[in-house]
């Protein structure tokens, strides 16, 4: 898994390339913590290049969601592929994690 963080006007985008499983989940947790520490609590996780997710990856997303909200922001998903959406639905987390077509539109309507 590769993770890339990019700064935008008013939010940051964390892009996940590959499989989001136990081996990479700590990287996502750290990236979100670093953003919050730097004062950015509005985070989009771009999953358009994420091939697969399991419960460890879901845990990292939920952890990020909780911590960004505590910091006054939010964590939203963009570009969710079918393989990831299938797992989100199985766990009912599609109702908890907001999903947007692209990272650029995730915080449009604030």
């Amino acid at each position, binding site marked *: 898994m590769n993770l890339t963080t990019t700064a935008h006007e008013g939010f940051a985008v964390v892009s996940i390339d590959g499989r989001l499983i136990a081996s990479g989940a700590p990287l996502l947790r750290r990236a979100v913590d670093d953003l919050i520490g730097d004062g950015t609590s509005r985070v989009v996780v771009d999953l358009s290049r994420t091939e697969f997710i399991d419960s460890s990856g879901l845990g990292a997303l939920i*952890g990020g969601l909780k911590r960004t909200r505590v910091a006054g922001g939010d964590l939203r998903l963009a570009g969710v592929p079918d393989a990831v959406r*299938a797992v989100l639905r199985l766990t009912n987390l599609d109702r908890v994690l907001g999903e947007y077509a692209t990272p650029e539109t995730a915080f449009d309507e604030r």
Partner: protein
Amino acid sequence: MSGDRGTVTHQGTASPGFVDEVLDALESLWIAVPSVPTEDRTLFMLAVSEVTTNIVQHSEPGVRVEVLLSAEEGQLRAIVRDTAPAVSLDLGAAALPGPESESGRGLALTLEVLDEFRHDATSEGNSWTLRRAIGTSGR
């Protein structure tokens, strides 16, 4: 679909990178059985990932793990054998935690996507049997 068949094995030491190695092996199985529907691939991979992650996270250094992955006769199967001390596990007692929980979904998900999930204590350690029938989504 039923004409496709293939088998892949992978073995190694329980370590954080081991799960990725197993999933790489599973990807190579899909190349041998191209007719397996995408949803079956995803959900079977989910079970394999959960079970091998659980073994890796609960194993002492040096535990060996062997994974046999196969697709044939409309079934996806994984047999996972480890050399860890035999565990005692209630496979029927898994429920999804609340939406705010950051862990505890692995076993419930595994049971949800499989048609058979069995654990056997062996003389060497543990044996896990995973089976999903292909093309029966919406169960």
